[in-house]
């Protein structure tokens, strides 16, 4: 779609930005998968690798910002081009946050240091991760294809993650109450679950941005939400 | 001979050009040329033309003079000191040499003619040969200069510049030459008649007597009547042509539809093409009687040849000048100024009056000045319609006369070229020249002062 400008170099600029965003998204997906993998397999080496790899995402974000600012200054983009670039900036921001969250999970894996909670509990977190990764993949795909319907599907699909998150919290709470020695590892796990839930929120943000790029209008309808509280399990308990 | 020389020149130049170009083309295969091949060719051509023309222009007159002198020496050395006899002898010699002599030539003449003919043939051959040599030398020089890095283009450019400069100089030198030749005769006139009397005398009757005892032998050379006559007629003409021409121009440029304009403008310009003789007899035979009758019916005393008739017709003559030039300058006023004025809510006439005329003012003034110059210099109409009488008057109904008419009158018929009467013509011409020069300078000042830079 960005291949009909009178100034061909403009097309190339826009394509470069889009490509960098896609690359960044791919990296972030891998980071998320790896971090949770490290958690599940109690693999501190993998966790360390994830921590180290985050800088690549940060570097890409800076690059996208620079390129975007330069393109705005140089081309004075209008309408869809302007939304494209502004959208890319926002996407880069969200993806960078997702990368940070994955890094945070990896750090917690290192901190747990063999004091892992039972796999039963981790399975819930893994399930959440699968859902989030699916969302993330879908929304990045929607961005690459400029597919508004797909983006909107992601935007509406966050509900399930929230629900799983709530149930994970409840489980962890029960476990902690059973034996106070579990509290440390359960708190870490709780934060991991929270991080993954946040990733889901970023995925919906991305979906909103993609919708804005394509449509030009912010989403006006209200997002379906099963539960509005941050830690529903606690209030529920 | 000259034709042969020029033909040879042409051939040499053509060959030189082709060779120069071909050589440059060949060189271009191996090296990058500074100048394109035609310039190389042109350079070779120029290095042939220049020396050959120089030889012809300088050599031919010198050779001619030498031949003539030699022939005259052979004929009779004593004729050299006497211009008249020298001329006669020379005419005879050349006539005999070219076979046009009628009658029986004397021996001396025959010898002189033989000398003349043989010398002539010999020198001409010499010049032809010399031209060939010089041309070939030039060609050699040109060829030697050629190389890939040779800046032929620059040299050719310089040659073009010199050629153009020469053309410009001819125009300027001609003007200066004319001025000086008139000036010298004027000085001679002032040796006979005092400048004071000439410039301020109120009487003009240049008929000096051929014999001392004739009546009216004194002659009077006061130009004041001519000045007034010229001013009167020119004034009437510009009074007619100025407004009419300007208004016509405004109509053409601002109001007329393109179709009307396309049809009317050429017709108006035809008026400029009518020979002044025709206008003159129109003035004398049609207009002057009408004026006289009209005047007499009103109880006025009108001369049959009046300044008014001449002035009106002269005005008609210069209308196309005023209108055509004014039309051009009005059209040169940018459309954006008109738009600006209309957009302010100005009407067409307000726009013309307040924007277009001020903007075109300098151009209109120069158009008027040109028309005046033309009117001042006009002769025919005045001769036919205004008469010859040097009356000192501002009455448009009287007969008056002008500079040009007097110059023409003085010089028509057989003249002695050293009488005050004849020389007066040059003095008049000089004054007339001075007059129009002043007009032009004034016009230039006005144009400079009020010129608007549109872009």
């Amino acid at each position, binding site marked *: 779609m960005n291949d009909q400008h009178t100034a061909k170099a403009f097309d190339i600029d826009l394509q470069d930005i889009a490509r960098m965003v896609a690359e960044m998204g791919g990296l972030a997906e891998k980071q998320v998968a790896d971090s949770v993998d490290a958690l599940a397999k109690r693999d501190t080496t993998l966790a360390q690798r994830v921590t180290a790899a985050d800088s690549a995402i940060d570097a890409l974000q800076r690059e996208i910002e620079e390129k975007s600012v330069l393109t705005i200054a140089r081309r004075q983009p*209008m309408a869809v081009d302007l939304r494209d670039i502004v959208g890319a900036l926002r996407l880069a921001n969200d993806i960078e946050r997702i990368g940070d969250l994955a890094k945070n999970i990896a750090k917690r894996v290192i901190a747990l240091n063999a004091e892992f909670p039972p796999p039963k509990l981790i399975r819930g977190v893994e399930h959440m991760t699968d859902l989030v990764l699916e969302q993330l993949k879908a929304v990045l795909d929607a961005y690459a294809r400029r597919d508004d319907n797909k983006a909107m599907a992601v935007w509406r699909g966050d509900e399930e993650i929230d629900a799983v998150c709530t149930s994970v919290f409840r489980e962890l709470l029960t476990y902690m109450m059973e034996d106070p020695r579990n509290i440390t590892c359960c708190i870490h796990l709780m934060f991991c679950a929270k991080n993954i839930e946040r990733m889901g929120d970023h995925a919906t943000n991305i979906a909103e941005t993609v919708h804005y790029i394509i449509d030009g209008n912010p989403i006006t309808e209200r997002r379906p939400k099963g539960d509005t509280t941050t830690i529903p399990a606690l209030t529920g308990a | 001979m000259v034709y042969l020389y020029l033909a040879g020149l042409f051939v040499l130049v053509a060959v030189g050009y082709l060779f120069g170009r071909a050589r440059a083309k060949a060189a271009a295969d191996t090296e990058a040329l500074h100048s394109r091949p035609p310039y190389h060719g042109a350079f070779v051509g120029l290095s042939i033309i220049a020396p050959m023309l120089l030889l012809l222009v300088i050599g031919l007159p010198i050779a001619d003079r030498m031949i003539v002198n030699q022939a005259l020496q052979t004929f009779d050395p004593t004729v050299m000191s006497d211009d008249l006899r020298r001329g006669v002898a020379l005419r005879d010699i050349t006539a005999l040499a070219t076979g046009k002599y009628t009658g029986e030539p004397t021996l001396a003449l025959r010898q002189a003619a033989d000398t003349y003919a043989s010398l002539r043939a010999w020198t001409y051959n010499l010049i032809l040969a010399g031209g060939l040599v010089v041309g070939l030398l030039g060609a050699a020089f040109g060829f030697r200069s050629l190389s890939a890095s040779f800046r032929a283009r620059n040299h050719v450019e310089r040659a073009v510049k010199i050629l153009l400069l020469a053309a410009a100089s001819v125009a300027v030198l001609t003007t200066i030459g004319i001025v000086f030749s008139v000036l010298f005769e004027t000085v001679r006139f002032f040796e006979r008649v005092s400048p004071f009397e000439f410039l301020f005398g109120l009487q003009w009757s240049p008929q000096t007597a051929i014999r001392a005892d004739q009546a009216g032998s004194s002659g009077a050379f006061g130009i004041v009547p001519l000045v007034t006559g010229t001013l009167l007629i020119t004034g009437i003409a510009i009074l007619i042509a100025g407004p009419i021409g300007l208004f016509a121009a405004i109509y053409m440029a601002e109001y007329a539809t393109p179709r009307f304009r396309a049809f009317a403008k050429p017709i108006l310009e035809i008026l400029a093409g009518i020979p002044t003789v025709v206008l003159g007899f129109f003035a004398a035979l049609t207009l002057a009687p009408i004026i006289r009758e009209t005047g007499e019916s009103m109880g006025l005393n009108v001369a049959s040849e009046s300044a008014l008739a001449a002035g009106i017709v002269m005005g008609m003559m210069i209308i196309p000048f005023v209108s055509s030039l004014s039309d051009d300058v009005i059209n040169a006023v940018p459309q954006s100024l008109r738009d600006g004025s209309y957009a*302010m809510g100005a009407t067409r006439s307000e726009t013309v009056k307040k924007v277009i005329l001020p903007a075109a003012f300098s151009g209109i003034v120069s158009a008027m000045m040109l028309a005046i110059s033309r009117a001042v210099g006009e002769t025919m109409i005045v001769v036919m319609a205004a008469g010859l009488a040097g009356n000192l008057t501002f009455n448009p109904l009287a007969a008056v006369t002008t500079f040009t008419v007097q110059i023409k009158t003085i010089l028509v018929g057989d003249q002695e070229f050293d009488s005050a009467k004849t020389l007066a013509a040059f003095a008049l011409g000089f004054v007339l020249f001075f007059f129009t020069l002043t007009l032009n300078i004034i016009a230039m000042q006005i144009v400079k002062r009020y010129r608007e830079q549109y872009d």
Partner: protein
Amino acid sequence: MNSMVQVKQSDAEGAAPGLGVKPKVIARDVNVFYGDKHALKGVNLDVPARAVTALIGPSGCGKSTFLRCINRMNDTIPICRVTGKIEIDERDIYDPTLDVVQLRARVGMVFQKPNPFPKSIYENVAYGPRIHGFAKTKAELDEIVAGSLRKAGLFEEVKDRLQESGTGLSGGQQQRLCIARAIAVNPEVILMDEPCSALDPIATAKIEELMDELRENFTIIIVTHSMQQAARVSERTAFFHLGYLVEEGRTEEMFTKPKDQRTQDYITGRFG
């Protein structure tokens, strides 16, 4: 033909900033022909009062033609024919009883190239008031001239040389002089036909700044080739293409999310 045009009445009322209760200029089904050429095709447009409306579009799209309809400058072109209706304050300006001179006193115009008259700065500004007899005394005229120059942001620069020629000013100053000349007759609408296209960026910025001030008192319609300029100075933007008014709306929306694909292509630089 009207399908090409989107004039949303709902949009015109209330929603747009600067759009009063009644539009200042209303164009309905305006067609312009130059000889056989159909230059403007069924244009409908509402122009809000005391706001800047930008007309954009590629060269030859009819935007200048439309602009010149509003003060009937097209009348000066013999082969030009205008049909349809244009109203200013609900008065049809093509009504035969309406005097074009009076219309043009109400609708000022500033041109692409600064075109000060070859007169003094003072006389340039005094031109309109003199023609229309606005000033009874010299003092009144002085006041109008000074006031107009002040409004055009030029007074401080030229107050000491009012008698010097207007053509001696710089390009930007000349254009502000032309604006001063236009506002000297206190028009209600000012038409600007690419007023900055011959100016450098600084002079352009000054003119834009000036327009920002003028919008409080005047209805401004500007034709511009610079999308950035349209985006900067105008409240509403109309996009013309091939003689049609393709899209019209609030400037913010036109430049971030135009509805018509042609508008999108034009403002993003995708026209072939």
